[in-house]
């Protein structure tokens, strides 16, 4: 009994302690000139969908959920966003060389086609981020169009 109590107490102290550790936040007020939306003149319907479904982890501006206010959730999300941005950052789009743009577009298309993206762990909470079949077609069609224009 005593052991359980001690363990619970230690956990509590640790939990309280880590709340004071702040994680840097991936937020920015400006949309940079290099952003995918500005560079490619994205139609509004597609743009909105990308914003909701992709931009939280693949841009310099995340719309944080409420549970990001609690550690260790915030750490987990921050790592997640960091990884997402290193793979693909829509905010930095025009800084990519044409070779990399093509490469990224190919991955975007296949990830959406195979239902790998948006991640199921993400859409579990962000139900509005789910791409319907027709939305998938729309987004993929647009991405293919950009990819072909790069050749």
């Amino acid at each position, binding site marked *: 009994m005593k052991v359980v109590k001690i363990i619970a*107490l230690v956990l509590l102290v640790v939990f309280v302690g880590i709340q004071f550790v702040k994680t840097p936040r991936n937020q*920015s007020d400006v949309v940079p000139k290099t952003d995918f939306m500005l560079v490619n003149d994205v139609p509004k319907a597609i743009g909105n969908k990308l914003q909701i479904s992709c931009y939280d982890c693949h841009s310099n501006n995340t719309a944080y959920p409420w549970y990001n*206010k609690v550690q260790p959730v915030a750490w987990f999300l921050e790592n997640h966003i960091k990884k997402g941005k290193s793979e693909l950052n829509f905010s930095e789009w025009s800084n990519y060389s044409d070779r990399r743009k093509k*490469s990224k577009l190919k991955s975007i298309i296949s990830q959406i086609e195979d239902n790998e993206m948006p991640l199921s762990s993400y859409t579990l909470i962000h139900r509005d981020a789910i791409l319907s079949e027709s939305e998938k077609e729309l987004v993929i069609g647009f991405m293919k169009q950009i990819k072909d224009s790069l050749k």
Partner: protein
Amino acid sequence: MRKTKLSIGIFAIAFAALTVMSCKDNKKESVDSNGHHTEMGAKENHMGMNNESEEHHHEDGDEDHDHDKGATMKTRDIEASTQKNAATAPIIDAYLQIKNGLVADNKDNAAKGGTALLAAFSNFEMSQLNEEQHTAYMDIVEDAKEHAEHISESPLEHQREHFETLSTDISDLVTLLGTNKTLYLDYCPMKKTNWLSETKEIKNPFFGSKMITCGNVKKKIN
């Protein structure tokens, strides 16, 4: 048991309190995330060259040299691809290791090839390149490294996806810098893309045992 319940209770209250508290001050710091990917800039000017070389691969055998730029680039490409260069051997060997892993449906061997390719890039002596080659090389390698990383840590089908673009990168690299090896540029009609092989016999890395003999040789290098 009651004490445990009590502890859990305290835990829960603390959790709730802190959640509310931390709500207040979270809007303060916003981070400027520039600085990421800065190394990617300033490489656009050589894309023309690479596009041409890619075109060359896709339209091999096409004798139609109507636009001047294409014509000169093609001539240069042919010269470059027959250039004997032993320095690219470790890169090509690692690429072929990935290729042979995929041909054999062997994820682990392909992954090892991915790691070997990353090592080959970091050991590559860039000081031997002229400025133009250096810029073009960096552009290719930046992309190729990403594919190599994915190949080193992904399941087979995902490895194959990255291998498609990696093949374009490596064949552009061979065009740019040359090789001392005899290679075959093969074409996969299903994927509409090329790959490099050290054997004349077709062994398709995109489908492995499912369609092992699918494809045709487009060009012999050296």
